[in-house]
């Protein structure tokens, strides 16, 4: 079981919470306390609005342990409106065929169980085609 490593990321993972650099105003995800753009200290939290577009995507058929029961699933690089790219699954695609540039919005979903069905559920951000 890997409880603390997931617990300590709860807020950023549930709600896509990163940081904003007080010096150059860059929005940062994941939070890293040092702005990757200007090198200044950046510890101000910033909740992303969850909107973005698909930068790239692919579908995984041969999944790692913990994801094998949900395969096949689609992962993407999503370009957030505020700038950063994030890696996340696309969900609720239904008949929608994803494409580069497709607008998406953040939802919070089950990522996987920590271990088997006895383990903790890990929730986090995913993206779906925008509903409106």
């Amino acid at each position: 079981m890997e409880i603390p490593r997931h617990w300590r990321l709860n807020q950023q993972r549930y709600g896509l919470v990163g940081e904003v650099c007080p010096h150059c105003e860059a929005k940062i995800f994941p939070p890293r306390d040092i702005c990757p753009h200007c090198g200044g200290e950046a510890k101000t939290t910033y909740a992303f609005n969850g909107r973005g577009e698909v930068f790239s995507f692919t579908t995984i058929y041969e999944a790692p342990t913990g994801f094998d029961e949900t395969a096949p699933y689609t992962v993407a690089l999503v370009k957030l409106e505020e700038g950063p790219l994030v890696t996340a699954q696309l969900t609720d695609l239904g008949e929608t065929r994803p494409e580069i540039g497709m607008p998406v919005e953040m939802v919070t979903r089950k990522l996987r169980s920590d271990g088997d069905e006895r383990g903790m559920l890990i929730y986090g951000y995913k993206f779906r085609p925008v509903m409106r």
Partner: protein
Amino acid sequence: MPDTLLKPSRPVGIVGYGSYVPRYRLPAKEVARVWVGGRASGLPIKEKAVAGLDEDVVTMSLEAVRNALKRAGIDPAEIRAVWIGSESHPYAVKPTSTIVAEAIGAAPNVQAADMEFACKAGTEAMVMAMGLVGSGMARYAVAAGLDTAQGKPGDALEYTAAAGGAAFVIGPAEESLATINASYSYVTDTPDFWRREYQRYPEHGNRFTGEPAYFKHSTAAGKTMMEALGTKPSDYTWAIFHQPNAKFPQRAASLLGFTPEQIRPGLLSPVIGNTYAGAAILGLTATLDVAQPGDRILMVSFGSGAGSDAFDITVTDKLPERRDKALKTQDYIARRTEIDYAMYARLRGKIAMK
């Protein structure tokens, strides 16, 4: 007779409401195809909503609550309670509500608990929230009811047991989209439906679930509240009843003297099934999506075991400007991917992996 109404000393209402219905739909005829040789007469609904592999009551609650917050436009740090009713919480022990409270930014200065009362766990949470706000203990409280309901394969409930629900930010009446004028609860020990600890699927009393359970409690709750308030069905623009199938809520409405038109916007079970703790309140959200200022709404939930909560609600002039701030219930219903029974069995974890 003592006053039986549940009515806060300080007027309260719905500051924000939100709903969620997952994307997948299982037609009832698919269940019939697999279990009764395709016999399609008397199917209880057209189709039901089914959650995806990465959804559960936590994720669905979160989306419904986020929608409610968008309409409420309040600071989540001012929320003093997050109460979520469901019979399908993903953990047997560990609250759904703590996860939701953390994710919306309401933690840590907050009450958090999960409610359980079969299909009325959501309205139970609403009454509690009314009490907390109405007493002045809190400015805002979140009450939600959602389920990913399980029906035993081949059982009558498998046609209807669905996923979805709604959430409300309850707050002061002066900030509300709709005021809650009063509520009334009618509860008895009636074993029409239950699920024992460690059992995967519920048991039910077949026709016993009808007259002595659903109809007795629903009509008593509605009737008693109207008598106490001195109202009659024609005073209400809209009415919503718990909807385990398509037929029951229509009959309950008729027994109390409501017209088909009054229950039309809130009657969702034919196309999404019975969302259990979410059923009546989803109907309320769909009704609020179309209601106008001044409209009066009667809602009656029903939970097996058994009891009903009745509510008397009046839409304020704040509704029209705020209802478009989040997705509407019919937006979710329109988002639809039909699945067959095999995919349903996979999504609901009914395929034995070990």
